[in-house]
């Protein structure tokens, strides 16, 4: 009856009803939140309001929404997390701890629900590209805030809101003892808002906005434990390295605006053909290559590609939930998303694509090597993230954009899972992150163990798991590619499979299997792997002698299980529509001169067939080889790794020092800048300008007055003599001037 009444309403009143119910639902969330602390309305009262809001709101949302209502819904997606962030951030004291997590989680839940509705709507063929408001007009260019809702956007929206919700719930358990609880929830909701604005943008201005805003929140979260010197060093480093990328990104946007006069994606893409025929004024470079490389430098910063990758390992100083959300699943993939979105531009420049390919391949392999020598559980996962981002970048370079985005999605799930699993281990270990102190945890943390195993299998690309479909597609695409650099890339991604499997299962065996090494008296090697995930006011870490680890509470394990499901299944179910179907056809453009995924599409029959075929290909055996070797090294013969380390100490030192990137940056850029600054300050400003010119002219005035004082002798005859000489000289010149 209610439903039939609802369908009879006019569009206007439906809209009003929808807004009213949304407000009511938000209000209910806020009431629940307030109530959790102050018991203002009585528990039953608040629950009743919240229940009515939700129950009344849901059918309104479930009914087919008119276009106007859908457009309202687009706004709800980013604004709901923003509202949560503001409430938790500005009124954190008033709403209390429970209030903060309720209101922010609720905001993200609303965003997720709305994203699902939008997904259904996009599936039905409805897309959207329009302005929300005009930010500014100047120089004949309109600067706007607007949304582009299509299949690529909505996929990103689902990934972001889903992982964000999981992380919100997980954080309730993970951060439960932290004094900055409300602040943390405020930040992660603010991040969700920024990331959604980034992916939903229909123009470069808003893209840049979101781009820098996620960087800001990343900065705030890496430095969340602001008392720790390492954390506040890492967040400054992250921000500055990202700014180097943004520097290129901004110039790329500047070139686009200068030559097309527009910031709007659609308008710029229409002009793309023109851009390809132009040269950059004053350089003679092909314009389109310059634009794409500038844009990609932005992606290198955000998506941590060599040599701008240096900030990501250090970002592990932040609490583990944000490592999962920001530094694995979402923010770091913004660069991949951006390049995929810009496929109509990148397709026009083979030089830029080759550049992308080589950078990506280098990242994929060489960052993987570094994962092998890490002892900190989070850092292993961090280097594996770098390596996987390299795989995505490789896919972009060979024009397999949809494979890149596909791997982005599967990786978001299994890497968030691995990070949250690592976080659960860290809780169980009482904030000890050194894998050398773990071992045999599977007995004590069964859920964490199983989910981490599933995540690791997905990561190494075991057939049928999600990572298999996405990674294998990338490797196949590289295999088929003709573009310069493809040979090197193929070598890197194939060897990378082996390396990935090796370090992943090294971690897995060290943590969950083998001898129980925890609870012993802290020995020497405990100190060099400083506990990175130590809480602000919580200095004890590690298990006391005799103490056993324990499984984490349900708020931690439930997100693990919920993330494990897509980590296993999502590849099987989505590869066909995403890579070979119509899903991305209208949003991702692949030029006729590039192979992309077409060869793979020709041989693809079914997901199951692909898995079966996968058993006979090199990547599978490389991965198995990696797993077997790590089993042999770390389960069977732990003496071998140590021997290798001694034997090849030079290589080990190189890897330990991360190829000396950090050292180089510190010495050359950081210290060099300070030296230059001091030189300009002391030498230029103080010595030259102030010393010689300003105070020098003051001294000069002093000397002149000294000198002129000498002339003022007071003797009349000297003055008279001077006057006569003067008149004489003047007259001489006067009469001889002709």
């Amino acid at each position, binding site marked *: 009856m209610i439903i039939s009444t609802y369908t009879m309403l006019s569009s206007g009143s439906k809209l009003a009803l929808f807004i009213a119910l949304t407000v009511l639902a938000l209000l209910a969330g806020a009431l629940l939140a307030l109530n959790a602390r102050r018991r203002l309305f009585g528990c039953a009262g608040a629950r009743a309001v919240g229940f009515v809001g939700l129950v009344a709101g849901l059918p309104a949302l479930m009914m087919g929404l008119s276009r106007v209502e859908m457009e309202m819904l687009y706004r709800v997606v980013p604004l709901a997390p923003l509202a949560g962030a503001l409430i938790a951030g500005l009124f954190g004291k008033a709403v209390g701890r429970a209030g903060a997590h309720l209101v922010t989680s609720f905001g993200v839940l609303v965003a997720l629900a709305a994203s699902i509705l939008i997904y259904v709507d996009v599936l039905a063929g409805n897309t959207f590209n329009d302005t929300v408001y005009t930010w500014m007009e*100047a120089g004949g260019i309109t600067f706007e805030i607007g949304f582009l809702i299509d299949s690529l956007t909505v996929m990103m929206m689902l990934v972001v809101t889903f992982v964000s919700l999981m992380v919100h719930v997980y954080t309730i358990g993970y951060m439960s003892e932290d004094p900055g609880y409300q602040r943390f929830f405020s930040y992660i909701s603010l991040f969700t808002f920024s990331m959604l604005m980034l992916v939903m943008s229909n123009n470069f201005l808003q893209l840049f906005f979101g781009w*820098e805003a996620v960087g800001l929140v990343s900065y705030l979260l890496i*430095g969340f434990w602001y*008392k720790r010197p390492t954390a506040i060093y890492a967040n400054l480093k992250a921000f500055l390295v990202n*700014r180097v990328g943004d520097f290129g990104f901004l*110039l790329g946007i*500047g070139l686009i605006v*200068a030559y097309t006069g527009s910031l709007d994606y659609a308008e710029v893409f229409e002009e793309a053909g023109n851009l390809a025929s132009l040269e950059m004024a004053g350089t003679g470079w092909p314009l389109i290559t310059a634009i794409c490389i500038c844009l990609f430098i932005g992606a290198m910063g955000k998506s941590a590609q060599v040599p701008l990758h240096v900030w990501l390992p250090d970002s592990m100083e932040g609490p583990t939930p944000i490592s999962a959300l920001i530094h694995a699943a979402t923010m770091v993939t913004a660069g991949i998303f951006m390049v995929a979105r810009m496929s109509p531009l990148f397709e026009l420049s083979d030089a830029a694509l080759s550049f992308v390919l080589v950078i990506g391949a280098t990242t994929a392999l060489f960052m993987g090597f570094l994962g092998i020598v890490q002892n900190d559980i989070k850092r292993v996962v961090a280097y594996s993230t770098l390596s996987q981002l390299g795989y995505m970048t490789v896919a972009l370079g060979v024009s397999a954009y949809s494979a890149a985005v596909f791997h982005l999605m599967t990786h978001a799930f299994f890497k968030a899972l691995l990070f949250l699993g690592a976080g659960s281990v860290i809780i169980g270990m009482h904030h000890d992150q050194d894998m050398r102190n773990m071992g045999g945890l599977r007995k004590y943390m069964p859920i964490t163990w199983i989910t981490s195993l599933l995540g690791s299998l997905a990561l190494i690309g075991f057939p049928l798991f999600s990572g298999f479909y996405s990674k294998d597609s990338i490797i196949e695409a590289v295999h088929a590619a003709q573009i310069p650099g493809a040979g090197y890339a193929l070598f890197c991604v194939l060897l990378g499979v082996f390396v990935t499997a090796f370090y992943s299962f090294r971690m897995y065996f060290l943590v969950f299997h083998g001898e129980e090494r925890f609870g012993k008296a802290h020995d020497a090697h405990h100190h060099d792997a400083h506990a990175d995930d130590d809480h602000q006011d919580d200095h004890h870490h590690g298990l006391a002698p005799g103490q056993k680890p324990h499984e984490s509470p349900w708020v931690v394990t439930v997100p693990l299980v919920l993330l494990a499901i897509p980590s296993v299944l999502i590849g099987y179910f989505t590869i066909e529509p995403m890579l070979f179907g119509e899903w991305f056809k209208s949003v991702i453009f692949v030029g006729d001169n590039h192979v992309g995924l077409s060869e793979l599409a020709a041989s693809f029959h079914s997901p199951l067939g692909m898995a079966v075929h996968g058993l006979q290909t090199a990547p599978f055996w490389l991965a198995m080889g990696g797993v077997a070797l790590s089993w042999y090294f770390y389960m069977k013969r732990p003496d071998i790794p140590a021997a290798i380390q001694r034997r090849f100490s030079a290589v080990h030192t190189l890897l330990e020092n991360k190829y000396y990137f950090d050292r180089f940056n510190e010495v050359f850029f950081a210290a060099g800048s300070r030296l230059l600054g001091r030189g300009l300050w002391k030498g*230029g400003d103080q010595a030259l300008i102030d010393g010689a010119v300003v105070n020098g002219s003051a001294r000069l005035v002093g000397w002149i007055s000294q000198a002129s004082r000498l002339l003022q002798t007071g003797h009349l005859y000297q003055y008279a003599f001077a006057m006569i000489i003067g008149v004489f000289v003047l007259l001489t010149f006067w009469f001889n001037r002709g």
Partner: protein
Amino acid sequence: MTDMPLLSLAIWIPIFGGLLVLATGSDRNAPLARALALLVAVAGFAVTVPLYLGFDTGTATMQFVEMAPWIRPYNINYHLGVDGISVLFVILNAFVTVIVVLAGWEVIREKVAQYMAAFLIMSGLMNGIFSALDGVLFYVFFEASLIPLYLVIGIWGGANRVYAAIKFFLYTLAGSLLMLVALLYLFLQAGGSFSILDWHQLPIPMGAQSLIFFAFLAAFAVKVPMWPVHTWLPDAHVEAPTGGSVVLAAIALKLGAYGFLRFSLPIVPDAAQYYAPLLITLSLVAVVYIGFVALVQTDMKKLVAYSSIAHMGFVTLGFFMFNQLGIEGALVQMISHGFVSGAMFLCIGVLYDRMHSRNIADYGGVVNKMPKFAAFFMLFAMANAGLPGTSGFVGEFMVVLGAVQFNFWVAFLAATTLILGAAYSLWMYKRVVFGEVANDHVAQLDDINGREFAFLAILAFCVLAMGVYPFPFTEVMHASVDELLRHIAVSKL
């Protein structure tokens, strides 16, 4: 409403109000002086609001014009008016005055009446500069405004205040004397008119244009300040009391930049275009060189002072590219810099009032004791680094876009501010705010009180509002900037 002489009110309410405050005399009446000063400042701000509301964005002609003969024999007039270039600065100036009065509320304990009066009178004089359309009137305001600032630095300043005050005074005076010569030349050339608008139409030969250009440059470059005549600014800032630094950064630096737009560009357009490469080079030096210098400062105020010079480099860069994005971006940057640098100096003032030190090394871990303050300071530091969503981004973005249109390599150098600005702002923030409580003095810090919260919150609102929705700010500029660009494009030889 528009019949009221709004510009005169904006000038004379603060000046006479200031004199009234001065009349309250000794520090026994300090509470009265403070209250009266706030009243005058708010009234002064209130009369500028209709300037925005009643502004016609469709025309480039002068609005709210007032005209009365002043010194008849020389045809000198009391001629006021604003266009899209100047109107926002009148409002900004009146707004900042309110903030400054609030900022000096409890902090200034000696010669309260004189302190407040100096700022009010200065505010009135500066409004005169932004709205004067007569050369002599402009010059009188321009010179007179030096005096209160000189006094503020010289009386309420720090240990080395006399050196700084004299350096500031001599620097700026030397520049403006050359400008006086140029004004007299233009008076004679225009057949006995001091009207700036008449001068805009005056044909001038190239040789004379060059001389006039450099005469103006001497006056305005010092005020901006442009590299290499910038060294007075860090000294002046370091010695000035907080309010003095705020006015210096937020308003006084804008006078020079405004002068370029009102005098140099329209009166001698050919010379301006001929010498544009020089000015662009100096601007880029300011952005890059000063960026590095700011990085290594150990004194917070000096650091922000240097960052001001770098930001003003963006302004002059925007002007001399002669495209709309550049000039409007520069104007937006000027307004934004008014908010942001003002707020940065206020934040440093908040710390200085408690610790009596500006040395970065004396701080560390302030966030532990002053979380609210840390949040505000973070916002302003980010705005200083040009983060999108804050006002600091808007102008930089526009100027960089304009620069790419002009020349990619100019844009390349200008865009380094993205890295340098973040480096010096956030490195300072890290050392001052983050970390463990560094020493006993920091351990005893109290968080900001209601008054401090109020003025920081107002500025935070401005910074965010302008960053999220700059449309209302740029809207008023278009007609005037368009007209200016058309005007420059026509040779006056």
